[in-house]
């Protein structure tokens, strides 16, 4: 999410990552090396905050602005990281909010 003022200056940004990390630990089946590296069942979910099917994630943010702010342009995008250095925007929403009207 990015919030910019009427001059295009970035006032607020926020990023949320959905990710799954599976790692091999010494305590895992068979240790580190060999075919365990290819064994999904020998991995430990260190981080699993994937968004499951039919689930909705909702986040609320408040951006405090300067007194002379007339309007802000908000852009929210959902990107998918396909590989290191290779992400793509899958969906994007823009909204303009005006003050003093």
């Amino acid at each position, binding site marked *: *999410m990015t*919030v910019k003022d009427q001059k295009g200056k970035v006032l607020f940004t926020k990023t949320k990552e*959905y*990710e*799954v*990390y*599976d*790692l*091999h630990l010494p305590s895992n089946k068979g240790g580190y*090396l*060999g*075919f365990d*590296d*290819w*064994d*999904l*069942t020998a*991995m430990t*979910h260190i981080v699993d905050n*994937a*968004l*499951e*099917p*039919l*689930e*909705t*994630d*909702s*986040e*609320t*943010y*408040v*951006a*405090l*602005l*300067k*007194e002379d*702010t007339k309007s*802000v342009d*908000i852009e*929210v*995008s*959902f990107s*998918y*990281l*396909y*590989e*290191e250095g290779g992400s*793509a925007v*899958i*969906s*994007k*929403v823009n*909204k303009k*909010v*005006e*003050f*003093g009207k």
Partner: protein
Amino acid sequence: MRFLILCLLLVSLAIAPHAAFAGSANTIDEAAAAYNSEKCKECHDDIHKGWSSSWHSKSIVDPRTLKTFRTFILSGADKLPGVKRSILRDMCLICHAPAAAAASDELAEKISGLVVTAADDKDASKREAATKELSKLNINCLSCHGAKSVGPGSQIEPNKIYGPGKGEPPHKDAIGYDTVKLPSMKTSEFCAPCHHGCPPGMSSKECPTQWTVYQEHYLAHGGKQTCQECHMAGEGGASHSFPGIYEKDFAKTAVELSLDAQPTRHFYQLTNKVVPAVVMNVKLKNIGAHDIPHG
């Protein structure tokens, strides 16, 4: 390990080495012969084009697949005593290159060697030649339509075409093949053997694959659609391009993103100052059948 990067490939890996699938084919052409699908495109040009753009059409030669197999061979097979490179056939190629099931142990080791060459060789012409040779083993029409099932245990049946039962063309007259109605081709279970990769009964928590996640995170929560209804939608419900998360237009269909933003004011009570503020609520709904990132 970054799971999302590997998951597409890992799902088709079996967890423990299967019984060896040693066949008798000593050349790639020999192994691929039973899967020759050249005749299919003469009548099914649109479907052939769809398949050509699919990941199935590069199931062994996609660069990411090649590199993953390369690592499997060099860091797995080559380092363990008593393990031969032919294990690639038994663990991976049963799904990634069904025709390789017919490979003799010697040919299976040669195929593994070609994978390493295609992924790593410094000489571009050697990489290209190895890739071209391996591409004969990619999943094609008969990988799915030539047997009653796919994946481990699947056996191609000569001169038979299996179809889901929607106006089968006259295969008998055209190419001498019997057409056999196979309603299970419309079910998710048909795809499962290759998009699963876990021992039976293993949960998504222990083994998150496309299949376990689909079952436990989608069907169990009210999801109704089959693999085919999403991944073969379009072209009258028979798209063979099998779009997935890597196709951005298709990926878009898996999420709903919304933003509500309202102007407000914030009162700094210590400084008696009021400033404008904006309250923003973002909602992201996963309307697909797999986790994001998917398992």
